């Protein structure tokens, strides 16, 4: 991985917390703590927004953001394609594909060059 990106990703600790950042720290740590104590993120310390359980029949997600929301279906069209790809791929094929994607991060121009990219687009 690109060293700068690597640093940003794996050593990221916010220095400047805004109100939004504080809200996220408060709500997320409350859910996590409640869950550790009771097995339910909503039980224990008061939460401002009830996190619905994901069940086979109602596949709900909590959108964790400053204004939390419920996501009733996670990228249904796209994930069906990815599920198909997964079912059709061996573990080694998946590993190889991800390895190639990582190689692009290390030298992001390689793929475009191989595909005959316009050199002038490199600046973008």
């Amino acid at each position, binding site marked *: 991985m690109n060293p700068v990106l690597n640093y940003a990703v794996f050593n990221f600790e916010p220095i400047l917390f805004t109100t939004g950042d504080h809200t996220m720290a408060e709500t997320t740590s409350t859910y996590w703590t409640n869950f*550790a104590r009771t097995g339910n993120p909503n039980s224990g310390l008061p939460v401002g927004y009830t996190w619905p359980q994901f*069940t086979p029949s109602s*596949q709900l997600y909590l959108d964790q953001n400053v204004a939390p929301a419920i996501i009733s279906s*996670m990228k249904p069209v796209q994930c069906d*394609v990815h599920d198909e790809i997964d079912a059709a791929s061996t573990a080694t094929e998946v*590993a190889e594909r991800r390895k190639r994607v990582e190689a*692009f991060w290390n030298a992001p121009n390689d793929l475009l060059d191989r595909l005959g*990219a316009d050199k002038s*687009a490199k600046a973008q």
Partner: protein
Amino acid sequence: MDRTATMACWYGPRLVAFLVLILIQDQRNALIWVRDNIVQFGGDPSSVTIFGESAGAYCVNDHMTMPGSYGLFHAAIMESGTNEGQGFLGTFLFDQAYGNAQYNDVLATFNCTDLACLRAIPGEDIIALGAIDQLGYWGAIVDGVELPADPRDMVRTGDFYHVPIILGTNSDEVPGFLRPGATQAQYTASLVDLFGPQHGMALVEVYPLSDYEDNAFLATQAIMTDDVFTCPTRRSARYFSQYIDVYAYWFSYVHSAVNLVVPFFGAFHASELPYGKPKKLVLETT
């Protein structure tokens, strides 16, 4: 500190009971210590939650499918890493043939033919092989000892340690692999190149560039994020929730400083960590 990569995931005919998945065994020893000693610190050994992010999340999943860890914890949180992601110990799940081949590669690298020879090699030389470009990926092996079967099959059939879980992913886990200005033709060609003609074209159709401001970086960011994280997590949640309580999340909040300086990073991999630290925590691993 647990051991990783080469030291953790070795598999070989003579190593099965000793070195396979040592990383997991290290973590298990920590859990055993917690069980035996946490009461001295005011903790409750019958209420232990483990949580991990990325490779740590795969480890958490391992403990849920490795019987040696059953009973040592009572709830689990997996952030950005799930059972269906074909990934374990931060890398990948492999069969015994792959493990044998990798073991033989290690022997050949050091001009060895047996374990006795390998034991004389300095540890740092062996650890250096864990770098991602050396000898392919490292991962858990279904050895029949620590890991009884393919954990995906175990979860699908309910054969795992039943405790409540939280699992989820971030909205921008994986950076895109094309430059923003790549053309439609280049976008299509790259996906066909990576995923093959049938699946590549299917992806072009459900991720039209126009949905991403005609920006190939953002479009490929979404595709790889979904391929590696979003959709495996959806599959995992579907299987797990047939047997246990599941709470699923999608972390979309972009830190204010990130939003100011590099907004295209979005809610990237691990960016939720500063917020999710529990107020009372027993074991964390990343």
